[in-house]
Structures are given as structure tokens and as C-alpha cells.
């Protein structure tokens, strides 16, 4: 039997794939964070709560209204996005001119409040969300049993990540957004409605978190704590990728997912810190992150 570092090649390939699946969630979540940080300069601590919100919207749509997975895949991001827009209009927009710390504190507080409310009404052991029948079951790949739904998660996240990247890098709207980041007042002078752009950006970022949430619902328990368990890792991903770098967030998300997956085979106890060890090393060598621009 062929082995890599003492591990049978089957197990190795399996773990690689599992890492890629987790990387998909990291990539989608860090993408939203990177978009928001890149354009608004807000460190969105509420991102984990918005991810949780996405999963709960999906769950409530199913339980209360009987709306299934596929419509929820569209509705949950829209609802979370709208709630993000409301938050930006009512509160965040007033914080752009003060120290960025206020934005961080506000979103952190918001996350705690959201989590607390859901914990009060839904408890902590979580709620089940079934895998949609179309994607139930799995495929035997020879080296591992791949649940079909996880395969779908990888494909979906690739599509959404690339889509977002294309919108920001290759369209006219995206160019306005990038210009507004560079020089707000100049872009405004050209007649572009910058506050509206920022509002939509925050809405988009939240919607991406909501989308990751509904994608995650059939894999993880829909629980008020699901966001806070993940958010710190996602922040590390953004830092490693380079704060504000969209491509960096996506690529790093997948890379760290794989690195974490492999650690779980070689030294499982370290699997929750390997991401942070990598972060520390990257910061020492390239303080701006793998894909960040040196200031």
C-alpha cells in the first residue's frame, strides 16, 4: 500500500478532501469579512452572528412556513442582507468618522445581543436541519465516502466566491466600490452616491455570511453558538490572507482548511491552533499578509 508520511494514501486523500470542505466555509465567511473591511474599514465582529442568523432563518422558514432548502438558499441571504442594511443605516453609518475601534465594539456588542436572544428562545443544544432530499446520501469515491451534500458545499462556495470576486474586480459597480475605498470624497465629487454604496456593501457582506449559514445548516447543528465557535478562525484567515484582500481571503480560506484537515490526522490535539500558528508565522515574515499590499 502506498503511504504518505506513514498514512495510507486513501486516508490522506480523504483528509485532503475534508479539509477542502471546511476550507469552503472559511473562504465564504472570510470573503464577507474581507469585503466589509476592505471597503468600509469596519472589523465586523457580528459576522459570526450573521452566519448563525442565516442558519436560523433557514430553520425557521422550514419549521414555521414549510419553505424548503432551495428557496431558503435564496431567501436566507436576502433576509440577513436586509437586516445588515438596516444595521448599517441605523448605527454603523454614524461610526465611519470616529476611531475604527467603535465599529468593532458596536459589532461585537451586536453579536452578543443576537446570540443572547437566540439562546433565550432556542436553547443551546441546537435544532436539526435535514439535508435536502436531492443531495441526501453519498458517493463512494474509492478512497472515501463523500456525502453528496458536502460535495455540493464545495461547488457552491467556489461559485459564490468567484462570483463575488468577479463583481468586485471586473464590473463597473465593483470599480466604483474600489474607487470609493481609495478616495471617498473624490468619488462622491464625480456624482457617485458613496453612502449608498457602503450600505449595499455591508448588506452584501452580511448576505454572504447568511449564505454560509444556510449552507452550513444541514452539516452542523443550527445552534446560537455556531457562529462564535467559528468566527475567531475566520478572523485569522482574513489576517493571513491580508486584511481587505478579497482574493487573499478566498485562497487562504481553502489553504487553511486543508492545513487544519491534515493536522487532524498527524496531531489532532493541535488542530484548533494550527491556524493561529500559521498566522503568527505569516505575520512575522509578511506583516501585511500573504496577499496584502505592503503599506
Amino acid at each position, binding site marked *: 500500500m502506498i503511504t504518505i508520511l506513514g498514512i495510507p494514501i486513501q*486516508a490522506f486523500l*480523504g*483528509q485532503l478532501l*475534508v*479539509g477542502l*470542505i*471546511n476550507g469552503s466555509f472559511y473562504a465564504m465567511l472570510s470573503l464577507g469579512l474581507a469585503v466589509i473591511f476592505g471597503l468600509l474599514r469596519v472589523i465586523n465582529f457580528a459576522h459570526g452572528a450573521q452566519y448563525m442568523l442565516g442558519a436560523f432563518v433557514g430553520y425557521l422558514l422550514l419549521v414555521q412556513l414549510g419553505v424548503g432548502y432551495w428557496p431558503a438558499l435564496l431567501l436566507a441571504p436576502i433576509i440577513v442582507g436586509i437586516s445588515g442594511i438596516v444595521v448599517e443605516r441605523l448605527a454603523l453609518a454614524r461610526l465611519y468618522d470616529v476611531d475604527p475601534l467603535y465599529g468593532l465594539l458596536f459589532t461585537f456588542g451586536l453579536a452578543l445581543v443576537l446570540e*443572547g436572544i437566540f*439562546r*433565550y428562545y432556542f*436553547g*443551546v*443544544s*441546537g*435544532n*436539526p436541519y*435535514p*439535508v435536502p432530499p436531492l443531495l441526501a446520501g*453519498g458517493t463512494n469515491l474509492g478512497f*472515501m*465516502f463523500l*456525502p453528496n*451534500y*458536502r460535495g455540493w458545499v464545495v461547488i457552491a462556495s467556489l461559485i459564490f466566491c468567484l462570483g463575488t470576486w468577479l463583481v468586485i474586480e471586473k464590473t463597473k459597480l465593483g470599480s466604483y466600490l474600489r474607487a470609493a475605498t481609495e478616495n471617498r470624497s473624490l468619488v462622491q465629487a464625480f456624482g457617485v452616491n458613496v453612502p449608498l454604496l457602503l450600505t449595499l456593501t455591508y448588506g452584501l457582506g452580511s448576505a454572504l455570511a447568511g449564505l454560509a449559514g444556510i449552507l452550513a445548516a444541514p*452539516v*452542523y*447543528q443550527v*445552534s446560537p*453558538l*455556531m457562529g462564535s*465557535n*467559528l468566527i475567531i478562525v475566520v478572523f485569522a484567515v482574513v489576517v493571513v490572507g491580508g486584511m481587505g484582500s478579497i482574493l487573499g481571503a478566498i485562497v487562504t480560506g481553502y489553504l487553511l482548511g486543508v492545513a487544519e*484537515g491534515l493536522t*487532524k*490526522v498527524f496531531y*489532532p*490535539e493541535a*488542530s*484548533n*491552533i494550527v491556524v493561529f500558528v500559521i498566522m503568527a508565522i505569516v505575520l512575522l515574515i509578511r506583516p501585511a499578509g500573504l496577499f496584502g499590499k505592503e503599506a
Partner: protein
Amino acid sequence: MKLTYLMSAALLAAAAAPAFAAEISDGKVKIGILNDQSGVYADFGGKWSVEAAKMAVEDFGGKVQGATIEVISADHQNKPDIAANIARQWYDTEQVDAIMELTTSSVALAVQGISAEKKKIDIVTGAATTDLTGKACSPYGFHWAYDTHSLAVGTGGALVKQGGDTWYFLTADYAFGYSLEEQTSNFVKAQGGKVLGSVRHPLATTDYSSFLLQAQASGAKVIGLANAGLDTANSIKQAAEFGIVAGGQRLAALLFTLAEVHGLGLEAAQGLTLTEGFYWDRNDESREWSKRYMERTGRMPNMVQAGTYSAVTQYLKAIDKSGTDETEAVSEELHAMPVDDIFAHGGKVGPNGRMIHDMYLMEVKKPSESKQPWDYYKVLATIPGDEAYIKPEESGCPLVD
């Protein structure tokens, strides 16, 4: 200073107490339910335990020896320091007579210490550690619903007899996980089973697929989950996804109750083996009581909640029988009286404070077998109390000769 204050408070209270309840201090029996009402164990016990305690008081008639009974509650947030402060305040200034429930072992140990020092009764239903009736035992401390030993005997020992003789553990990487793994391994080996290996995962991991693939590859007949709460739920859910149970391996959750099974749903939880001290659908008595509980709370009780009902009821019976709420007399009755109620039959309390009663090895039903809401378990085996719990004389409790 504090002592003088206490003395005068006691004197005042004694003077104010109405004549017909002369034997009940300050004319009232006050029970404090102290547990986790907002954290990871909020479904395990939580406000649902408080409801069970209130129900016990109502079923008892609301009065004992002519004195009214009151239930108060607080959230200890799983922090021993917060729990200790609340316990002191309850005993010192709020005339609380006994504290019960006490989910989380660190909290239960702290509060049992304070109760012993203040000469008050505590009855633990929510915490798992055997130390409560071992080296940290108290003459006024009782441990009611379950402990780690009974879970290990149930799931570890009884499952081997059912043919699950090779094990692989998925263990949370901290003290609780190790001790659960160790105790269970011992029973597996004692019954002639083999432990093929284990993998340690960090606390609050979200994705278990890597670990599950390793467990799957081990070929063990049973995968033991030595973790708790959301960690266990996520492991089970993802095991279902990877077809582990469908592939013929059995999952054994070492600490999991009806509340968590409900959260997970039968689709993911089917085939899971676990040990509990109570199941609502076991006999007419438990069914009748549980239906009433369900009407109040909208959910069926697990062993912690039913155990709290039993503990409160037994405490009130002991007061009624001894005619006073004085700690020594009530403790004596609690040690002497058999426990016969909806929770336990022929239960007895050892000199170390351990309530010894039967435990049940359960298997979670398939969705097709479940006939009605909350119809979740098949009882695989009954583990007699004397096997499930450490014998008082072997517990290491200094109170036992």
C-alpha cells in the same frame, strides 16, 4: 460580626414564626435551584429543572408541616465563584434551607463545600463527578440522578455484553473527556472488550469529519463519544452524514440525554446508545407524570429534570416525617428513607449520600419506529443500582467506616 447578625436573625425569625409551625425555621421551607440557565447546559437542566421543582412542591400540596414551601432559582453560568457567592447569599440572608440541581461538577463541589460548612442540605442532580460522594462527600450532601461511574457501567459495560466488544474513542481534549474515556475503557476491558484506539479533539470543534474518518477506519464496532453538549451533537450529526451507523458501527454517547436527542432529531440520532436514569415512557406512573410536565413546559423531561422532581419530593417527605426542617434530622431521614416515586423504585441512599437506583441502557429509535412526539428510546438493558454505582464502602468517602 457576621455570627452575631446570624444569631439575631435566627432569634428574630424564631420569635416571629407562627406557633403551628414552630418546628419549621422562619415558618417557611425555601429551596434554591442553582444551575446553568443560559450556557451549554441550559437544556440539560436549566429553567426546566426549576419547573420540575415547582411541580414537586405543588404535588406535595404547597405546604409541609403547615409551613409554606417556596422555590427560588438562579443562573450560576457554570462558574464556581459565582455559584459560591449565590449559595452564601442564599444561606446567609435569604433563609434558603437547601440548594439543589447544581449542574457542572466544579460548581457542585464548591457549593457542597459551602453547604457542609453552613450545615445545610444540598442535593445534586445535574453534575456528574463521583467525587461528590467520594473524597468530597458531606453528611448533608446528596447525589441523586446519575454520575460518571453509572454512565460508564451502563454504556461501557452493558454494551460489551450486547456484542460491542471493540471500541474507539472520540475524546474531548480536557480533564472531563479523559476521565470519561478512562472509566469507560475500564469497564469495556473488564467485560472482555478491547479498546483499539482514541483520538483527542479540541473542545468546541465544529467539524468532526477527520476524526470520524479515523474512527471509521479503525474498524471498531463501537465509537465512544467522550465529550458533551454541542460537541457530541455535532459528532453524531456528522457521523450520520458519513454513513457510519449505516455502515454497521455503533455510536455510544457517554453523556447525552433526551433533551439533546430531541435537539438532534431522530434522523441523525437513530441507533445511538446512551445511559440515562429516567425515561418518561417506561411505565404508567412515569408517563402520567411526564405528560403533566409536558403540559407545563412543552417538552418531556430528561433524568436531570425528573431527578430534580424526585429530590425535592424526597426532601419534603423527610421534613414531613421528622417534623422539622433542621438539617441533622432531615439528613437522617434522607439517608434512611427508601426512594419510591416516578423517578426511582426501591432507591436507597448510602452513607456517602449517593442515591442508588437502577439505570437504563437506551438505544435511540429509528424515525419509522417512533409512534408519537418524544417517542425516542428503546430500553436495551436495566442496570441494577448496586452495579451502576460505586459501593459506599469503596467510594473513598471519609464518612463511611
